[in-house]
């Protein structure tokens, strides 16, 4: 079954986790089932971050994940990038279970988003999705997802066109801008975290003590 839970800690189908690496060095990580990051002892994958020469613009590097024998496999074992570049992880296997990128440093991993990172989610079902920070921070927001009916080729084409538009939510020091957005079913929202205390973007229904609900 397709996993479509709004939770930056548990990446599912259509979700992405992006992380910028602002300092040169070697960063290691593993990709494991969601929630298992704290038990990771080996980091088989590496990001080599080289010093940027001059004023280079940010480049994006995609790491596509697949599953093999119930384990997640990255398509690149050692990825070399320049400082300031962004690496984005996504899983191409639509039947994969929820996963987590777990790095060897505190800022690196989607279990808790901190600096210069992001999480994107494709909303597969209509409704009002209230999200909160499962780690107790003040950030929260609402994504209202409108139902779509495609009964004709024209309606289908219109919907597909709409899907190609991304929606951006910026989060900086716990402030969310915009806090409420409207999208249609299937549309992707990119939550960009500039700088904050470790936080998550989690459906409030998943959080025991959600605020205001």
């Amino acid at each position, binding site marked *: *079954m*397709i996993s*479509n839970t709004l939770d930056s800690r548990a990446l599912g*189908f*259509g979700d*992405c986790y*992006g992380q*910028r690496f602002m300092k040169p060095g070697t960063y290691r990580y593993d990709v494991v089932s969601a929630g298992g990051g704290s038990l990771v002892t080996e980091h088989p994958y590496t990001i080599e971050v080289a010093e940027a020469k001059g004023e280079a*613009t*940010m480049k*994006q590097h*995609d790491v*596509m994940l697949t599953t093999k024998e119930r384990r997640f496999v990255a398509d690149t074992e050692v990825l070399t990038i320049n400082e300031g570049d*962004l690496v*984005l992880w*996504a*899983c*191409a296997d*639509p*039947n994969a279970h929820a996963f987590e990128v777990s790095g060897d440093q505190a800022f690196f991993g989607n279990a808790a988003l901190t600096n*210069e990172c*992001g999480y*994107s989610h*494709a909303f*597969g*079902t*209509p409704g009002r999705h209230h999200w909160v920070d499962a780690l107790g921070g003040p950030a929260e927001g609402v994504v209202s997802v409108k*139902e*779509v*009916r*495609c*009964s004709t080729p024209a309606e*289908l084409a219109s*919907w*597909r066109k709409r*899907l*190609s*538009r*991304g*929606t*951006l939510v*910026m989060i900086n020091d716990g402030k969310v801008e915009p806090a409420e957005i409207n999208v249609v*079913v*299937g549309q*992707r929202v*990119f939550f*960009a975290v500039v700088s904050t205390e470790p936080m998550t973007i989690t459906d409030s229904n998943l959080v025991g003590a959600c605020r205001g609900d």
Partner: protein
Amino acid sequence: MDITAAIDEPAADDLLDTAIGLVTIPPATGSGALGPFVASYNASGALSPGDVDLIAPATIRIDDFRLDWNLSFSFGIDLSTFLPDFCLPRVCVNIPCVGRVCTPRVCVDWPTVSVPVSFSDFVEVTADFGISITESGGVWKVEAVVQGVPNLQFGATTAALLAAISLAVTPILLAIPFAGPFLAVAVNAILVAIGIAGITGFLGPILSPFVSGLRIPIYEQAKNFEAIPAAGATDPAVFVTIDDVRAEITSTDEDELVLAIDIS
């Protein structure tokens, strides 16, 4: 010695009404084709009386007796057969002071879902019964036994069952991420694939055996039985032996079911 008992049509109607009400139909389980799908089912049924028409020399016709049936079934749908290929397109956003970030294109693999359906209805049947007389294990039995396989006419049931399937499929599809926009098209395609023929082809083999093997008890008696109990040491019990049982429908002034019993 011969004993002859005869009942006219109204009495036969009363007799068979009672007898039909006592018939227990064993529940059925199995699997069958529901259009292009394979459905596993549990079915049960109960009979209600109809109108008896005695036809000489040996036919009991029961008009419009009713089979109330209850059917629970489930079938699997490979949604990739009914839903179009769908991919989340590559989407880019411009993040202030950072730059352009794009998500990769990923494609949905539609799952196979199981659809459970519960449905109850009734069908009215007119069937001809023959008269079966057997002696087995020291017991004489006279039964009305249905002749052939009655044709069950489902009529409006087919549309109602298609509607029930539609109601069962809809929430399942709505719960599948990204399938909602295709809901109407998918449900329609599934119902078209099943069609009227799929419904009748599914129900017929399940429900026909409830009726086609039907035996309605009319008379049952031990071959040897105590007719008069003992009244004392010098007055022993009187036992009767039924040597033969015959049954027929006669048609003179009125139609009658006649039972002739030879005893000794």
